[in-house]
């Protein structure tokens, strides 16, 4: 029985060591669970779109629900201009959601509880949004750092603050997802450890806590995927429609 609550986050190699040019590209349990969550999405959406019935069966219904959920989120937050980015945001949402949900299964590994994974996702979004902004507006995109109606004396200060606020986007995006997932899983493990150490007599209280926390964690897993996707929409909106 693993008593260390942080042990669940260790990455270890599966299979042989692969080294290419000084880079360690070995297949790890993190990569395994990324592959699993991607194939779960693919399998699920394949089943959902196999039979295109007018009256959908259960799997098709759920797949359509995800589609309309993301489509509505995009049109609500970023408007019709963001429609071409639907595939990107949909795959992002589904990937984070399935990584979080698969992490909730016992004996599994939560990919999103590692900051490097979420940081890469967030940095990718950040760079993509910046590039999209520059493509759409050219150098006028820099005007998001200069809010209108600010006195000239305060302008340098406000511009620096705006730049810091812009740069803090990937940090807040990645830290939020990573911290929520890691804290939740650590807490579950700690309460699980209490059950073992208190034994048959006193173990019932932490056990009931664990059950309640599992429910909460499933909610958090969904909400974090939702927040991740909706913030991407908001950033995209800022880049596509230049005004505050």
């Amino acid at each position, binding site marked *: 029985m693993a008593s260390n609550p942080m042990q669940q986050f260790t990455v270890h190699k599966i299979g042989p060591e692969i080294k290419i040019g000084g880079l360690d590209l070995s297949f790890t349990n993190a990569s395994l669970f990324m592959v699993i969550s991607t194939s779960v999405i693919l399998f699920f959406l394949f089943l959902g779109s196999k039979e295109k019935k007018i009256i959908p069966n259960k799997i098709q219904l759920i797949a359509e629900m995800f589609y309309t959920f993301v489509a509505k989120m995009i049109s*609500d937050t970023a408007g019709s201009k963001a429609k071409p980015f639907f595939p990107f945001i949909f795959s992002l949402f589904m990937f984070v959601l399935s990584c979080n949900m698969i992490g909730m299964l016992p004996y599994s590994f939560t990919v999103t509880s590692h900051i490097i994974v979420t940081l890469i996702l967030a940095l990718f979004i950040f760079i993509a949004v910046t590039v999209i902004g520059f493509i759409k507006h050219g150098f006028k995109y820099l005007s998001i750092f200069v809010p209108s109606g600010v006195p000239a004396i305060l302008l340098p*200060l406000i511009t*620096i*603050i*705006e730049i*810091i*606020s812009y*740069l*803090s*986007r990937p*940090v*807040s995006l990645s*830290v*939020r997802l990573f*911290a*929520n997932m890691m804290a939740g899983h650590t807490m579950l493990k700690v309460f699980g450890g209490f059950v073992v150490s208190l034994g048959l007599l006193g173990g019932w209280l932490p056990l009931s806590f664990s059950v309640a926390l599992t429910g909460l964690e499933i*909610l958090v897993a969904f*909400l*974090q995927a*939702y*927040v991740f996707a*909706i*913030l991407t929409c*908001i950033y995209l909106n800022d880049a596509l429609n230049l005004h505050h």
Partner: protein
Amino acid sequence: MTIPDDFKTRLKIAKSKIKNQLTDDSEKRGSFMGNAFKLGTELVAAVAVGTIIGFILDSWFDTKPWFIIIFFFLGAAAGMLNVIRAANKMQKRE
């Protein structure tokens, strides 16, 4: 084949019920909780980024600890700006 009127009205009632539930309950609560989760890190992240920028500038210009102090406060200001903006956006969406 004609659909009996009784069924039509029942369908209508059921549909309106579903619509109300969706907008009232789960959807709204979901987005509220999403917003609540959003605000906390927004504040902290800007402070962290500001401090890191200050640290980098300090090691470039060898001016310890001035830039780190200045940029810490600028980062805090940026964090508050982020939170105010996010809160404004939430109010507008309602």
